[in-house]
């Protein structure tokens, strides 16, 4: 019987096969670290007198706590400052490469890896961060780990891992204009639930996926964890190779040829069998918006807030009642009538250059709604530079948005970028949990295009609500490849 993509990558990394129910010991190709989940791991090494086994397969950057304003001044929050300083000290003590605040390669760790060409097909990538699933878009196994596992990887460059099950998510048809890869993944999570992927590695397949750019694919794999999955992955193809080629750490010459030859074998065999298959039709997919307090509570934008009394399952009904109360909504209220206070454009889900370009295309020449605050936070400093080289920053500033420095920012509000109690956001990020963006804050997860339209109108909106000129080309908004991050543009800055 043939093998799935996930099984191929797994088997290529087995250091030692587990016996009698023990897990397999897998080799880790790349370990990314940030300041929040690593201090206790380094402390563990220090106490045990252990070195980092492979500093040359490890990299750190600062993202969760970093301010997005005044980054050249000392960080005002003392605990944040201490945590970042601790990472810097640990990196120096253990010989780990670090990209600190102010460095052009500082930024959200899941953007920095791919942008440096460190993330490639067929790799195992881990990080003490659940959105590590992002890197699976390149056709590798990438997953978030806890701090004990961070310490384990630092000490051994391996992880003992229990076997997984495989789930194929077949996304058939073509995305309509105005819908994006974010809408695909929100629809998938709504379909299978926040626990639907538990124990599985998801493989996204089908015509709609194959047409997506690398960055749009990253958005999908990024949110695999919101369906509870161990990891999400997409088979590498020419789109993948084109994205990787020429980046700082991409292989060169013969190494490149050997790599591509191997990468071309990384696809699920025709006769392989998945444990579960799920189908999603992209052809009539409307923009998706979450209304509740978990990412599975999402609906197409034309829908209304659910009426709990009509929900048969008791747990779901209670959850819906709680969510509606927390979110300050009314059962039956159309989503499009919900007014927002803040629009957040950023995060490891949708803070990349293509996201910023697509938003800029919608808002160009317009001004934001007076009642809305708009925060734009590029995923990395390099993305910010690229956007500035293309003049996008001026489009955002003219629109009335705040153009910030890079980091996780309001996705989880560990830095000063937070919602006030009761404040409502439309956010291109990945989690709408209670209090995630600030205590009492209310989050609606949306695509970059919905964020753009919402910032213009002040209520949850899609492109179809805008008076776009007749003949406006919306096809470039559907996630089809835009120009890749071009290193030459940056050199000319």
């Amino acid at each position, binding site marked *: 019987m043939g093998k799935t993509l996930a099984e191929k990558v797994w088997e290529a990394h087995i250091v*030692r096969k587990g016996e009698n129910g023990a897990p397999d010991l897998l080799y880790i190709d790349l370990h990314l670290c940030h300041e929040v989940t690593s201090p206790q791991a380094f402390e563990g090494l220090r106490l045990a007198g252990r070195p980092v086994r492979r500093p040359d397969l490890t990299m750190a950057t600062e993202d969760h706590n970093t301010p997005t304003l005044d980054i050249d001044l000392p960080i005002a929050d003392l605990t944040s400052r201490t945590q970042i300083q601790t990472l810097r000290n640990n990196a120096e003590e253990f010989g780990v490469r670090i990209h600190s605040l102010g460095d052009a390669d500082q930024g959200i760790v899941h953007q920095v890896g791919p942008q440096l060409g460190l993330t490639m097909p067929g790799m195992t990538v881990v990080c003490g961060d659940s959105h590590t699933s992002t890197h699976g878009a390149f056709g590798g196994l990438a997953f978030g780990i806890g*701090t004990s596992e961070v310490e384990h990887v630092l000490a*051994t460059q391996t992880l003992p891992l229990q076997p997984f099950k495989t789930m194929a998510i077949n996304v058939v048809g073509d995305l309509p204009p105005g819908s994006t890869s974010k809408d695909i993944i929100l629809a998938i999570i709504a379909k299978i639930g926040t626990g639907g992927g538990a124990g599985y590695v998801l493989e996204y397949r089908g015509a709609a996926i194959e047409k997506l750019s690398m960055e749009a694919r990253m958005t999908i794999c990024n949110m695999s964890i919101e369906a509870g999955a161990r990891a999400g992955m997409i088979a590498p193809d020419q789109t993948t190779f084109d994205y990787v080629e020429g980046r*700082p750490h991409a*292989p060169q010459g013969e190494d490149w040829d050997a790599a591509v030859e191997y990468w071309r074998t990384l696809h699920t065999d025709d006769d392989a069998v998945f444990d579960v298959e799920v189908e999603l039709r992209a052809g009539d997919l409307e923009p998706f918006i979450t209304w509740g307090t978990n990412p599975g509570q999402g609906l197409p934008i034309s829908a209304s807030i659910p009426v709990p009394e009509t929900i048969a399952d008791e747990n779901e009904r209670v959850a819906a009642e709680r969510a509606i109360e927390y979110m300050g909504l009314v059962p039956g209220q159309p989503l499009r009538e919900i007014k927002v206070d803040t629009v957040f454009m950023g995060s490891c889900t949708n803070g990349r250059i293509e996201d910023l370009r697509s938003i800029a295309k919608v808002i160009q020449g317009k001004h934001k709604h007076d009642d809305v605050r708009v925060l734009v936070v590029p995923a990395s400093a390099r993305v910010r530079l690229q956007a500035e080289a293309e003049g996008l920053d001026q489009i955002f500033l003219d629109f009335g948005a705040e153009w910030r420095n890079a980091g996780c920012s309001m996705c*989880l*509000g560990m830095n000063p970028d937070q919602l006030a109690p009761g404040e409502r956001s439309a956010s291109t990020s990945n989690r709408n949990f209670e209090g995630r963006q600030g205590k009492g804050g209310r989050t609606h997860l949306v695509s970059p295009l919905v964020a753009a339209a919402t910032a213009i109108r002040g209520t949850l909106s899609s492109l179809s609500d805008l008076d776009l000129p007749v003949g406006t080309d919306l096809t470039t908004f559907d996630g089809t490849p835009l120009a890749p991050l071009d290193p030459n543009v940056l050199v000319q800055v």
Partner: protein
Amino acid sequence: MDKFTTHTGIGVPLRRGNVDTDQIIPAVYLKRVTRTGFEDALFAAWRGDPSFILNQDAYKAGSVLVAGPDFGTGSSREHAVWALKDYGFKVVLASRFADIFRGNSGKQGLVAGLVEQEDVELLWKLLEATPGLEVTVDLVNRTVTAGEATVPFQIDDYTRWRLIEGLDDIGLTLQHEAEITAFEATREAWRPKTLPARTLPKIDIEAARSSS
């Protein structure tokens, strides 16, 4: 890690599903660089509500949490496990756990036991009918006993063995160091190394200003 065979303590019925890690410990508490002292952060947002279960005297000293399905979803923060442990919890029971949370629990000696949802409902009723009721979690036989009722729970064999023996994962892995070294010799040349660092040209980043 301490060895775990059985534990008896007050059961706490948490009638909520999808308890995500942002609820278990909000991100603002993640800035600490220590591994202990997170007890005040556990369920921080909910503990402001006087009716919250852990604010009720009978349940305050609880050590066995019985929660709804999909416990521990969301972020990979091991702080969620530390906060539960620091508060005094030794066991969490639910019909479904998020994978990363369950993995983190196993590393830290917190038993995350899978109980059928109908048994969760039974435990909830018993624990609500007699607030402060003690339950016994037997890891050897994989059972939970509350009053007259005994229900089974699942935990994978390997994690169970490690918890019972109190074994440290890193130590176990380093017994196979020769195999790791042998594997490293077979890695292909194209696989990237982070050192020496290669980047695009260094460019100064202009700071966005709070005044603008």
